[in-house]
């Protein structure tokens, strides 16, 4: 069972050090996105990397539309990986939507986590009443359309999704090389689960201390959202980065590394 889960989520474990760090990728990518960050931690920590089911080199046959229709299904992936590796008190680093996935997991099983580090998180992407998430519904529809257009080049784009891949998971793999998500339908569902989620009510439930790494000038998680999170998350630290955009761990790895090390009290 544990073995199945490690295979299902393409879990990789390496590094030296007693304290475990779990790195979780965001929407649109896979564990490779941590490539520029990991070298700075692997000598002092045990590193756990994985792909959510449907992303990267995970086992597509395990994809269950019911389970992954909301972020709770993705949080189950995180919890099951912790269970499979018998992990407690891990430092969880989540990019983008993985900030909230980590939060849901930590609310459900507080003992698994000692720190949550969220890179560019947002509890709700859509503007609602007084809350400014940054987007409206049409923007998300537009994103889904853009995604569809970009998946058109895929060899098996015209093949009906539900019939393919079930017995031949390797079919999607060549495409993984270009996009990190392997299947247009799954990618669309992840987009919906991500951008239509609203976890604002879950924020006060978090007991685990957290670090919010907020980029300056991030379209997907604007500064107001970072401040909102900081106000609602008990025991949180907000650090506004010089890095711009939504992927500081790729655009400014040095700054990202030093802020994380600083927060964890590791000499940078």
């Amino acid at each position, binding site marked *: 069972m544990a073995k199945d889960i490690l295979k299902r989520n393409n879990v990789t474990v390496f590094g030296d050090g007693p304290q475990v760090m779990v790195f979780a990728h*965001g*929407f*649109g*990518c896979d564990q*490779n*996105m941590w*490539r*520029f960050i990991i070298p700075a931690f692997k000598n002092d920590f045990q590193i756990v990397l994985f792909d959510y089911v449907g992303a990267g080199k995970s086992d597509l046959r395990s994809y*269950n539309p*019911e*389970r992954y*229709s*909301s972020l*709770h*299904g993705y949080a*189950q992936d995180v919890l099951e990986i912790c269970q499979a590796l018998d992990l407690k008190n891990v430092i969880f680093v989540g990019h*983008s939507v993985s900030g909230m996935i980590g939060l849901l997991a930590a*609310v*459900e099983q507080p003992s698994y986590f000692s720190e949550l580090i969220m890179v560019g998180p947002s509890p709700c992407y859509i503007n609602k009443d007084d809350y400014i998430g940054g*987007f409206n519904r049409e*923007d*998300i*529809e*537009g*994103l889904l*359309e*853009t*995604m*569809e*257009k*970009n998946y*058109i*080049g895929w060899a098996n*784009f*015209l093949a*009906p*999704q*539900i*019939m393919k891949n079930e017995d031949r998971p390797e079919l999607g793999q060549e495409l993984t090389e*270009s*996009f*990190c998500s392997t299947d247009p339908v799954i990618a669309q569902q992840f987009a*919906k*689960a991500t*951008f*239509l*989620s609203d976890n604002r009510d879950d924020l006060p*439930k978090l007991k685990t201390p957290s670090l919010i790494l907020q980029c300056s*000038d*991030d*379209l*997907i998680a604007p500064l107001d959202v970072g401040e909102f999170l900081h106000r609602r998350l008990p025991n949180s630290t907000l650090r506004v980065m010089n*890095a*711009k*955009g*939504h*992927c500081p761990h*790729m*655009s*400014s790895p040095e700054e990202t590394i030093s802020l994380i090390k600083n927060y964890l009290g590791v000499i940078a």
Partner: protein
Amino acid sequence: MTETLFENAPSGYFAFDNEATTLVVNETLASILENTKEELIGKSVETFFTVPSRIFFQTHFFPMIKLHGYAEEIFLTLLTAKGKHLPVLLNAKQMEWVGKWITCCSCIHVPNRKKFEDELVAARKTAEAALQENTELLKAKAELQLRTEQLDKQIQMVQIQNHELQQFSHVVTHNLKEPLRKILMYTGKIANETAAPSLPKLARANEQMKAVVSGLQQYVWLNEKTIDYTPVDLNALVEEIAAQLQQDVNPVPISLQHNLLPTIEGDQAQLAMLLRQLLSNAVKFRNGESARVQIEGTVIKQNRFRSVENKYAFADFVRLEIFDKGIGFDPMYADHIFELFRKLHQSEGLGLGLALCKKIVENHQGHIEAESELNKFTKVTVWLPCFQNAYDRNELKLSGVD
């Protein structure tokens, strides 16, 4: 000369750095964007695109460039200064230029290809939807058939077991109770007539047996009684029960701390019994003079399906953590303490309380766990669904984002 060719090439060209600041733009792109080169250089390259394209840029395009060094045939939509949306195909490459990493892109305007692709996507969607519907219907039908058969078998088994249980409970309540009553009566009589030294022991054993029988009766009652679901205010219930318990255990002071607990759908009488049992355990197994109990309730989402594999419906559950710093128990017994008549301590009582708790929780489609460290603490965690009928609520909407 070459520069003129570059500026007016039949494709738009731009380059930006890691911060997404635009470094180079050719005339063709400036005119496509209905803008001037001077205006565009220095601006964030993201501003060239519509919002959906900017999201795609951040979540797909940028990671791809960083991880692979290039990206090809990316479909994005430009946003011109006058607000027009222009579909473009874009190739990009990362390279080193005057000492820093930059991303160079060229793009062509593809309005006709977009129309064609729109139709392609629409056709595929229609085909997919029809096929999906069909496949899913067939799958659902087969599954339904299988489940109905399983359900029928299970109902049959449950009926048999229920019948046996009823007979058993009849034995317990009548056939055992009556002789027991007589034994008690005659023991009392004999006690009046003679003064045999073992008589008080016999009387005690009898009393104990009576308690066992009535405990069993209670357990059986929980099995048979239909559950009456109403909204139960856990906050009020906890306080009410703590106050009652305080009167019963005076002068032992009970200090109860709890956060604001939600209202859930449940059987008021059974939930009261559950909380009373858990609280009185905390009092009974206290360490020292006073009993300090903490209750924390958190609403979390859990999968309602607990036995059927690969079925998911995430619904609201309240997680109640009842924590006391009492004498605790050896953690090796954590899996057994909910068994009938399982006693870990030499104390009054039958070892029935936690079995009743488990029964009540299971009657509500919840689950219960306990952890402890000897002489340190006990924590009983109960998960109860907030709503008993998922389909009355918005949960279907919650689990399917559409």
